[in-house]
């Protein structure tokens, strides 16, 4: 059995708590990095992180990129979508194909 964690600023993640996700508020860079690492050690298989927080700790996130667990998924916070999630999708396409073949579809 695995667990799902949600990381982000308090306002963005409050609602997830009501649904039974484990929420971990964080707003500072160091705090977020440590929190992410400890969550991974605790065995969370799926970690949602708000985009404004994800923007602070790209190195920590990319460290878990190639491993099979955990999946770290950026989601938009209260401030709105920063396009980080979409950019990650784009990067995947670029990596695999060489160019972003979907860029014209927006």
């Amino acid at each position, binding site marked *: 059995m695995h667990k799902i964690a949600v990381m982000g600023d308090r306002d963005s993640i409050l609602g997830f708590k*009501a*649904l039974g996700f484990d929420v971990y508020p964080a707003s500072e860079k160091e705090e977020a990095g440590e929190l992410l690492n400890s969550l991974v050690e605790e065995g969370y298989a*799926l970690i949602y992180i708000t985009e404004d927080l994800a923007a602070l700790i790209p190195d920590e996130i990319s460290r878990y990129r190639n491993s099979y667990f955990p999946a770290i*998924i950026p989601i938009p916070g209260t401030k709105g979508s920063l396009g980080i999630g979409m950019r990650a999708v784009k990067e995947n396409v670029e990596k695999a194909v060489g160019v972003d073949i*979907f860029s014209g579809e927006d």
Partner: protein
Amino acid sequence: MARLNVNLTRMVLTNLKRRLNTARRGHKLLKDKRDELMKKFLEIVKENRKEREKVEKMLMDVHSRFIMARALMSDTHLEEALIYPKQKVTLKASSKNVMSVQVPVFEFETEGQGDRDIFPYGFANTSGELDEAIIALSKVTPHLLRLAELEKTAQLMADEIEKTRRRVNALEYVMIPNLEETIKYIVMKLDENERGNLTRLMKVKDMILEQAHGYKKKMTEES
């Protein structure tokens, strides 16, 4: 292309030919793998994009609802209402093999009173907006999960495709041409040796005949 540094012998030649054969077969297989991976990847990534757009839109909607709820309720009441969840979400993660890439499959289970009653609070101190926000959020959850699955799969497959492509290219543009050139070089060198040997033998034969019979002199006299 660089020639491999090997001895010019028949045995090495046979070995190299065998290696070239293996390389060609490997190249073909890897190429097929790359094409198939790419096909699967494109399907997944297309869905990934759609799902992400949807989730982002839905989540923004949820956030704006929460902001409304927060505006209508005091912070303490809001926190108090949400602090003890009624549901518990557990995740079942298994894996699936797509073209020798292990990709995750997520299933989640909610423990609780079921879909009907997801509100972890009484209705006395909370506003209707909060209810709506929670309902909206609970509708996003399955999409969030699907998104996670797709995104991780796309990530892992992108890495695998890159790796496979490098291997294919290394075989196609380095390994196979090198082997071919080395084989060609050895064949030519061996042939050259053979020709050299032949002329030497002919020359030696001439010399021996000359010694034994004075053959050369006779030939010139006759003509």
